[in-house]
């Protein structure tokens, strides 16, 4: 029996087995490839999406457990008219991505953090942003989050 859920505002019924991680249902059945496979054990965060508004590592939640819930992926962040989310705009302004592979997950984590905290403190950013980035874009991620919330980032020389 198909699993019914809402993805990026649209009701969908997915044929994948209920034990399939949400990640693979999104990528392979819906073709939403912006959500990435990194490790499959919820350690890296490349697969981060929102499930009922909560930041969730989609490699480690079964499709069956997402039944009836509302899922937002990177493809669903922009407004109906195509305007990018303020966090995505901040990401461009700060030129955050390098290889870019982890950035969908980073942005989803940042959006959830800002939604919860409004103006996150540096320690809230440190605590919430646990997604891994091998290119080392962390300083720019900090800069973009602070810029998106009207705060300026500290530089080493100014501390």
């Amino acid at each position, binding site marked *: 029996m198909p699993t019914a859920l809402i993805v990026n505002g649209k009701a969908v019924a997915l044929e994948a087995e209920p034990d399939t991680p949400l990640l693979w249902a999104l990528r*392979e*059945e819906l073709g939403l490839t912006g959500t990435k496979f990194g490790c499959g054990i919820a350690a890296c965060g490349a697969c981060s999406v929102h499930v009922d508004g909560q930041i969730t590592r989609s490699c480690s939640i079964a499709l069956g457990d997402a039944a009836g819930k509302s899922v937002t992926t*990177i493809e669903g962040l922009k407004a109906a008219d195509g305007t990018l989310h303020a966090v995505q705009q901040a990401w461009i302004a700060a030129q955050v991505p390098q290889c870019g*592979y982890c950035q969908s997950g980073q942005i989803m984590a940042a959006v959830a953090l800002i939604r919860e905290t409004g103006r996150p403190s540096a320690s809230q950013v440190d605590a919430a942003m646990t997604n*891994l980035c*091998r290119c080392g874009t962390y300083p720019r991620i900090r800069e973009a989050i602070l810029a998106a919330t009207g705060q300026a980032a500290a530089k080493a020389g100014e501390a």
Partner: protein
Amino acid sequence: MGFKRRAFLIGGAAIVGGGIFALQYGDYAMRRDAAALSRRGNAGSFGAWLHIGEDDRVTLLTPHIDMGTGTPTALAQMAAEELDADWAKMAVEAAPAESAFGNAWLAKGFISDVANDSALVRSLPASVWSLLARSVVNQITGGSSALRFTGQRGIRVLAAATRLALIEEAAARLNVPASELTTKAGLVSHAGSNRALRYGELAKAAAERTLSAEPKLKAAKDFALIGTSPARFDVPGKVDGTAQFGIDFVLPGMRVATVMAAPVRGGKLVKVDAAPAMAIKGVEKVVQLEDAVAVIASGYWSALKGLRALDPQFSDDGHGAVATAAMFAEQERLCTEELKDFAPPAGSRLVEAAYRAPYLHHAMMEPFALTAHYKDGKLDLWGGLQDPLGSKHEAVKLSGLGDDAVAFHPMLLGGGFGRKLPGQIEIIGQAVKLAMDSPHPVKVIWPREEEVRQGTYRPQSAVRFKCALGADGKIAAWRSAFSQTKGFEAGAPLLYDLPEAENTHAEHKAHVIIGSWRSVEASQHGFFNECMIDELAQAAGADPIAFRKAHLAKNSRAHAVLDAVARASGWGAPLPEGTGRGVAVVESFGTVCAQVVQVSLREDGYPRVEKVWAAVDCGQVVNPRGAEAQVMGGIVMGLSAAIHEEITIDKGAVVQSSFNDYPLLTLAETPQIAVEFVASTAPMGGLGEPGLPPAAPALANALFAATARRVRTLPIRAQAGA
């Protein structure tokens, strides 16, 4: 001196004599081939790499893939600079993975780098390079080479020659001397008659003209685009989820496969019972490869479940007893043996130390993924690898098909760091084999566990130093011996100008496969040498920066970066109790980078890196914002490896399997980082790698300053707090 410059190494083989050439636009046959392959035909195509459309759009076909370093944008800046193009009309595309687009500039750059830019290398005629390029070609992205070789020696020259051809064509049409024409923002103008022609209306005819082989390049003072930071072309697609990486590729009817290879390198698949996998819904086939088992299914999850249901038996090629501790012990025995006859010069005192660096994994965020489709005698592959052309050649060899029957379609790659260089990309063979035996396209995806266990690691290395400090407080002799697996045997050049210095290598044979890991040998040897010089400074009772400077040649580029980093960090200022600062300076890929790290200890004994200051001399900076990102990224990766990372071997197999037991540095652990580029007229150096090597030694030296405890074995973890 025992320190030698070495060739850029790929999979242990030097590429000297490899894929090559100077200005391939000198070879018209190749130019025609390339233009045809670029799907645009000859019209408006300059030397294969530049195309100017009738709509004025200038497209650079770059032989470098987008690995994340931003070089496609920077190469476009270099092209637009010499071309006087309109930046708003510039675009970049990946060059087709075909021999006509082999990147000879890169190979020539490495060769002349190795040969110290010898007259011999420069004197070879273009036809020789072109000929070589046809037989052995590459499109490697690696070796911090895109801008300093491809950009400086290739793209800028071609763009300058293209500009001259556009001027000549305009001169003919306007019937005025070329000397009266000027170019700006995609227009050729004649001030005297107040007339101008667009590049787009000149390009088709200009492309038929012979391009100058030695056009004059702009002087740095005239740069309008080089040295500025336009936004990267690739960023928007990477923030809205539309960027397509190798793993994202989809074809109708495609199947997904996953694999497990022999856990002990060199081992073979002995037997496997396919039945448990075939019982899983969605699994279609279990394939026995020589050294691996593969499961093909309707999707990745079914394939993975199928793979996990199997109990394959592998041989171990006789390596089943190999373990890390014994490997290090043997390496240290070899180093000690090398140095047994060393005696410090009369009147000096011995300073001795031994260091260890572990195998390191690349851990790029995108695991290996490659799609292959075999149909009607033709084989197509789609994926993100560091050498599309080399990958194509590998597929030609493995498939037994002709060059014309195989196409590799380059896609974005989610990090490479050296792991996706040719030489040891097993997934090419796997994808070719599975697809050629299948009526469907097959995408092979490696589980993260496979990706960690089947790595090509930065070599595990041990070193012993026996150095001598003279009565004058200066180094009287520097003797070191290191031991690691052959392939990277030359070590790294020593930055310091010493009266007596020798570094020798004692080969340690191991079955573990090693490869190029971001910054290659500069990572471990930078750590070794820059920690040892710190120990000598301590023994001499000298300031670490002053001591280094006292041992540099007068004209060394390291002076300026040490001075800059001392100034930026306020070196010497008093620090809180328990906080320390350390310094290191390493030259790699033609760039010198000095760093100061400030550190204290966390409650769990791990380092808390508070701040890092970096000063860099890479010659001309093309895109300062992108350059800063590369140095920051190198520092993060260097700290990550120094604090956390280690691949160990037990029973011949890699112990670690994912990010739970191979942790990377997190955002919370990332210090504030300030990067400064010093003004320099040195030849352009690389930037993808040189930010990395100083991080580990500067951190270890800072921990000594904070705790009076030397960390001589990586990773650091809680050693300084023990």
